[in-house]
Each structure stands twice: as C-alpha cells, then as structure tokens.
C-alpha cells in the first residue's frame, strides 16, 4: 500500500505516557528512532519492536508498531524465533547493558553468530536503572554503587569486542547526546542485512549521571571522541589536529603537525583485523596517554542469514519430496490391515 509509506515520525508515537525520568537519555533515542522509521520504506504493520526488561525496555510501548515487552534478557531469543518464522518483518530488539550482557549474554552471542537480519539497540548506561542503581557488567572497575559501596571488583565487558568475538556482521557505537550521529548510525544499521549491533551510550541521570560526559561535554569531547568514517583517516582533536597511526600493530596518537593525514590509519569498515583493534580503544579516559573512544560503524560484513538458509532448506525439501501429505505421513511405510 504505497500511500501508507508516507509516514512522519509522529505516526510512530503511541497514546501512552512516556515514563522515563525527566532528563533520561532514553527520550532522545526514542525520538531518533521514531524519526528514522519513515525512512525504512516499510509499512508500519511490518515493523516489530521486542524488548527485555529494564528502563530502556519500556521502549516498545511508545512505538506505534507491533511490539512486545518481554522478560529480562530474552528479547534476543524471542526476536530470533519471530525472525525465523516471519523473515519478511523488520525486527528491532531493544535491550540494556544488564539485559543484553548479564542475564541475556548467552542469547546475545548466539543470536549474533546466527546473523538474523534484525537490529539491536543496546542502551548502555553502565548501570541497572530499573532496579535503582546497582552496577552492571559494563560499569568500570571501582565503580561505587548501591551494591558496591566500596567499589566494584568486577572487570567490565567491552560490549562491541564481545560482539565481534561472536562474529558479529555489524557493530557500531553512538550516543544519546548526538542526535545527528545517532540518526545516521540507526539508518546504517537498519540497512545492514544481518544482525546489526548498535551500542548507544545513554545517560542515566538518576543513578549514573555523567558516565559518558567526557564524550559529550563541549570542553572534552573533541579530544575524547574519534569519529569513524569509512574511507577517511582517523582524525580527532579540537582543531582536527590529532590522528591515529598504526606503528606495527600498535595504534598511536600522532600530531598532524608532524604527520601527514595520508599516513594515518584509514578506516575501512570491512577490515576485520583493524575492527578488532578499534574495539580495543577502550581506555579509561582519566588515564594519561589513553586513546580516544571511537564512534560510528566499526565493522560490517555480508554473511548468510540463518532464516534465509532455513527457508531454502524447506524449499529444497518440498522440491525433493513434494509438499507434505499428512495421510501418507500418518500411515508410514509398514501398514497392515485388520479386516
């Protein structure tokens, strides 16, 4: 129905009151997601949002599409079943750092290796928001929270590295405070055919305010944020005066006063080896000599999708054996008759 495809962002809002804390980063993400929906080129009824449990997982209630708010950690598994059985749908998974990486860690990695064509928005606020502020698997070491009054002794996950380790075919990072970048990455993710993992740094202003401040604050962000662009050199800094160069296999910050742009690391989304290095740009920004944090598409690759192979196996079976005949199935091949 062509006329229906002319949507605006408003068409995707529901009549439900949005219930995040005032100032929560989730609002911005909701807004950007609603704003890119008309650009998917899909009818509203063909879009499904599935979430787990957490503040972020309230998301589907606010999207006027089909949706399910499920149970903690399992949105990925539910979406897998939906995608296998309805490959034609546009499926979006909404999950938090606890939901995806703690209770749902197993489903996440298995979904990734199967590479269903769906999109995962991982709202990373480095905290358990809904349960009121315990540390999460992405909270940094030493983090003081309600459950770690003298500091966390858990080593955190590096989410994108984990996903790439599971052979992800698309990983990207963006942040709530940069709507333009968010839009761009959401659109890129939506166009990727396969599982696209988009980690979104999201500020929980109630329980973990400022966790990503260095990447969003005007005073620091230029020196801390490394924007990745396919085919472009890795340049950052207030005056675009710094760059990353590979010395051997060691990424090194260089001054563009000394090194020419042409000698910098040129970002190639399809280079898996370099993507692995890029995911390792994960230094604590307070440590002297740290690398900047990359944002953008780290890696993308075209690999077969589970649901497509499943369809083709079914097609093949039908071609070989014909459409299943129930009566023949029930009788089997060793029948006897009692007269």
């Amino acid at each position, binding site marked *: 129905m062509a006329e229906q495809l002319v949507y605006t962002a408003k068409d995707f809002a529901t009549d439900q009151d949005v219930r995040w804390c005032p100032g929560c980063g989730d609002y911005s993400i909701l807004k950007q997601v609603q704003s890119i929906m008309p650009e998917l080129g899909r009818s509203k*009824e063909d879009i499904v949002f599935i979430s787990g449990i957490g503040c972020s997982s309230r998301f589907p209630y606010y999207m006027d599409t089909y949706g399910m708010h499920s*149970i903690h950690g*399992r949105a990925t598994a539910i979406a897998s079943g*939906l*995608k296998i*059985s309805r490959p034609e749908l546009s499926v979006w998974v909404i999950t938090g750092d606890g939901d995806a990486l703690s209770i749902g860690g197993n489903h996440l990695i298995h979904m990734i290796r199967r590479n269903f064509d769906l999109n995962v928005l991982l709202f990373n606020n480095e905290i358990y928001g809904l349960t009121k502020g315990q540390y999460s698997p992405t909270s940094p070491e030493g983090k003081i929270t309600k459950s770690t009054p003298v500091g966390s002794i858990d080593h955190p996950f590096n989410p994108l590295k984990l996903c790439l380790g599971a052979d992800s075919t698309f990983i990207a990072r963006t942040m709530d405070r940069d709507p333009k970048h968010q839009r761009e990455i959401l659109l890129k993710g939506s166009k990727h055919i396969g599982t696209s993992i988009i980690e979104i740094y999201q500020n929980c202003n109630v329980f973990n305010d400022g966790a990503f401040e260095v990447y969003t604050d005007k005073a620091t962000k230029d020196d801390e944020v490394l924007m990745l662009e396919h085919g472009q050199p890795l340049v950052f800094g207030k005056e675009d005066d710094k760059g990353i160069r590979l010395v051997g296999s060691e990424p090194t910050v260089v001054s563009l006063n000394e090194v020419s742009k042409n000698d910098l690391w040129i970002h190639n989304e399809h280079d898996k080896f370099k993507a692995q290095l890029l995911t390792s740009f994960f230094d604590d920004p307070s440590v002297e000599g740290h690398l900047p944090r990359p944002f953008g598409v780290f890696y993308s690759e075209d690999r077969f999708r589970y649901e497509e192979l499943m369809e083709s196996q*079914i097609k093949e*079976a039908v071609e070989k054996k014909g459409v299943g005949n129930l009566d023949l199935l029930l009788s089997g091949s060793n029948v*006897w008759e*009692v007269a």
Partner: protein
Amino acid sequence: MSKVVEEKKEVTIVFAGDSGDGIQLTGTQFTNTNALFGNDVSTFPNFPAEIRAPQGTLAGVSGFQLHFGSVEISTPGDNCDVLVAMNAAAFKVNFPRLKKNGTVILNTDGFNARNLKLADYDVSPIEDGSLNDFRCIQIDVSKMTRITLVDSGLGKKEVDRSRNMFVLGFLYYMYNRNLTATEEFIKEKFSKQPDLRDANIKVLKAGYNFADTSETFTSRYNVKAAQLKKGKYRNIMGNQATALGIIAASQKSGLDLFYGSYPITPASDILHELAKHKNFGVKTFQAEDEIAAICSVIGASFGGKLGVTASSGPGIALKGEALGLGTILELPMLICNVQRGGPSTGLPTKTEQSDLLQAMYGRNGEAPIPIVSASSPSDCFNAVYEACRIAVEHMTPVIFLSDGYIANGSEPWNFPTKDKLKPIIPKIKKEKGQEAYLPYKRDEKLVREWALPGTSGLEHRIGGLEKENETGNVSYDPDNHQLMVEIREEKVKKIADSIPLQPINNGVEDGDVLVLSWGSTYGVVKTAVKQCVEDGLKVGHAHVRYLNPFPNNLGDILKDFKTVIIPEMNRGQLLKIVRDKYLVDAKGINKVKGIPFTTDEIIDAIKLHLKD
C-alpha cells in the same frame, strides 16, 4: 529334525546385551515383524544408565522388552518367558525377571572369564546350577557368525557387528515368522554398502537355518494374529507419535509449525523426527538452551505460528519464567515434557511421573496452564493433538505430559486419516474492524483475538506487565489486577466445557474401588483392573487425560466408589491435587524406581484396599 508346533497366546521376550550389540535394533525388527503379522504388541526399551559405560559391564546393559500376542496386549509384560542374553552382565541384570520354567538363550562367547568378572560372577551361572529350573539354549553366536562370514572379506569388527542378525534369524524360526520385513529393512539400511547388506542377510538366514537343523530345541511356537479392531495399523513409538500429532495439528489448523528446543533425553527424538519433515513447512530450531527455546517459540507464536517446544524436567524448570510470560500474553503454544526420574539430572534414561506438580504450579504468580497427558505410545498422537487444539482455540500455553516409558515404547496404532481429525480453528483477527482493536477483549469463552504482525491497523503492544482489561495497556490498578488474575483462571477453567466427560475406562461403573490413573500407567492399570473384575471384585478404572482442567464430571465419578486409589510413579502428585480439589480421602500407590509398575503391584494394592 522336525519340531512340534505349540500354540501360545502371548509371549514376552527380553533382548539384552551390550549397548554395542544392536539390541534395540534386534528388538525393533522382531516387533515390527510380529506387528505386521497381526499380533498386538507392546514394547519397552530399557537403555543403559550410562551411555558410554565400558563393554560387558552391568552399567552398560541395554535391554528391549517385547510383549506380543493373539490376545489384547496392554503392557510390555511384567516378567519374561524368554531371555536372550548376549553376555554375562546382560544375563545378570535381567535374569530375576525370567518366569519359572522360562527359556534363556545365551551367547556362550559372552560368558568367558573376562565377561564373568565384569559381571561380578565367581562361577559362571551356566555351570553353578542357577539354570536348572529353566530351559537353556546355548549358542556360540560369535563363532557361528564368523563361520558364516568367513569368505565375506569383511573385517572382524564388521563381522561381529552382525551377530545380532544370527539371534534374530534364530528367533524368527522359533516363532514361525518369515524374514521378509527384516530383509527389506537391511536392504534399505545398507543400500550403499552392498557387502554389509549381503553379510547381514546371510547371517540372518544362517540363524534361521541353524534353528531349523540344530537340536538346540524341540518345539516351535505359533502366536496367532490378534483380534484387533478393524482398520489399518502401523507400529509407532511414543515420541514419533508426538511428532506426528504436532504436524497433524499444524496441518489442520493451517498454522505453520515452529519447533524450538534444546536436546535432552528422552525428548530429543521429537526434534529428530520433526527435523525430517521440512516438506511440511516445519521449521525446527535447535536453540542454545531451553530458555531460548521457549522464548523463540513465544516469538514465533506472536508471529502467528504454531509454536512448540519440548524438554524433560530440568529443561522445563528453565522454561518456567517464559511460561509465565506466555500465560500473561495469552498466546497459543505447546510445551511437551517427556518426564524422567528426578530431581536434578536424576535418572535421565529412566521413567517417572514426577513433574505433574511442576506442570500445575511451577511458575511465579497465579499462572494456570492447561495440562494434557498421554496414556500409551500411540496415544501420544491424540493427546498432543488435543493439547495443540486447546492451545490454539483457547489462546494459551498448554503442557503436554509424556514420559520416558511411553516415549520409547511402541505398539500398533490404528492411525487416523486427515479428514477424521477434529478441526482446529485459530482465532486470528484478519483485518481492522470498525472499532479500534482491543488485544484483550474476549469472547464468551474468555478467549482473546490473535492479531498478527503484518496486519494493517492492528498494531499493538503486549508484554509481561499486568495489563488493563481489554486494552492491554500497562496497569497497576489493584482492582484491575484482581480482575485479570480471575479472568485468566476462569478462562482455563472454561476449557472443561469443550473437552469430553471422564469415562470409566474399564471395570465397573460404581463399586468398591476406583483406580484413578493418568499417563503411562494406563496399560498396567487396565490389565490389573480387568483381572480383578474377572476375579469378581467390584473395581473400576478411570484414566484421566485432561489434568487441568479436569473433566466436569470427575468429582461425581469419585463419589460412586467407596475407595479411590491413585497409582503414580511419584510420591503422590495427582493424589494431592485430587484430595485438594474434591476433598476425597484418596489413597496413593507410589513407586519411584525408574521402572513402570507391574500388574501384580497394582492388583495387590487393590486387594489391600478392598480389605479396609
């Protein structure tokens, strides 16, 4: 030497050997041949406790029990008439169940010093007089097989692997059966290995001829065809019948089948069977764990498919939270539990009925789920079909209970044709109506409408949070929660109006003792009750298929008897539910040994209660 032919009404044979001896295959072949001949049959494979137990040990013994006859056969038999033992360990494990004056067929090669030691025998039972009261046929099966295949060019290992065919041929002669069905089977199985095909057929025939010419025994047996109900039959195992029932439900409801599961004994064979039938549009998904399995099913069901998962107790425990989600979402889905001994990993290869309370109550919150159980291998088909029908027509998860005993057992099945199966009508809302779609608006059965993604104008959100009546919007209103809990409960209760009334399956309609059973105890209770009635006792038998909700008349039936006894392979689970619901002073007969009841155990219990 010519042999006398003796008529037998029924025979129970136990085949036993190492798990590498091809015992299950031998048993299955002998069963199929007898079934095709027209006998009624019932089988019970007894798998080794440890799959990788060392050769020749007691833990590695694999058994296959077959009861066949010209009369109605309801159980695999308590004790056996014939024991075929391929080695000393197999003999030791099964000998206690051999009837007085029964026959043992021994592979003498399996009783050498090493075998005896592994089976903890100081003196061979062949020599110490243990077999004096029995008829003992000794054959060096290994040697006979090797002689038969001396020119085959096959290696020793391959030669020895066809020993089971010698035994099978021997028994075919003894029981007057022809070799055709097994020959056909061998031809198909080894269609790509002609040398193995020829070797197996040669050994099969050698065993047959050896029985004919040797003087190891003097009489052959004749077990006539049984007077089964008119119709077409095939032999079927429980898990296979379960798989076919699920496919049938998918076909009749017009809903494609999505099956998500994680392997576990004894449920995996359902996955194996379904995976073969992709040409029925069946999608099977081997998930990373049981939680993912049921969650994938929830996703598929939301997408409008017939979502099915299966597991055994430990896996069902993992599915608990998602079952609650299925319940509050009110989406159709089927959860099969092929029960085994528990708790924890328990007895993976042994049977038990100890997950009824888990099925009934094993979720947080008030989360009623309908339960349907199967009573025999072939009955798995009808029971699981009914379970799917209830799930789809009442928009609810349904639990189907089977167990290891019927899952792996087999019997003749008077299979239905497609047109004889009850219709299954999904409540799918096809298009937007005049009014806005309310996902939790209900019909008179309290069933909501199923709106599938892809349907324009019906976009809606569902979730695990309590929902407002009709709209489905999140609601924390106290009165609304009370209302919704009651509605979900009432919806399940109302299913009782669309299931058959409880019959008295066997015995008297009212009297002294009612034996109330469920699940795989059907055959043994039926046999026991018939025996008691023949002995002049006033005993009835009601076998409950629908465990939640119960048939509307079950309470009345209980009142028609002075005493109600409930035999179960658990510590009294149906007993608890029945006592709770009907306030009757029912008594339990409870066995948890990983093996089914014997007929005598049930008869003794009935008689004990008659005295009270």
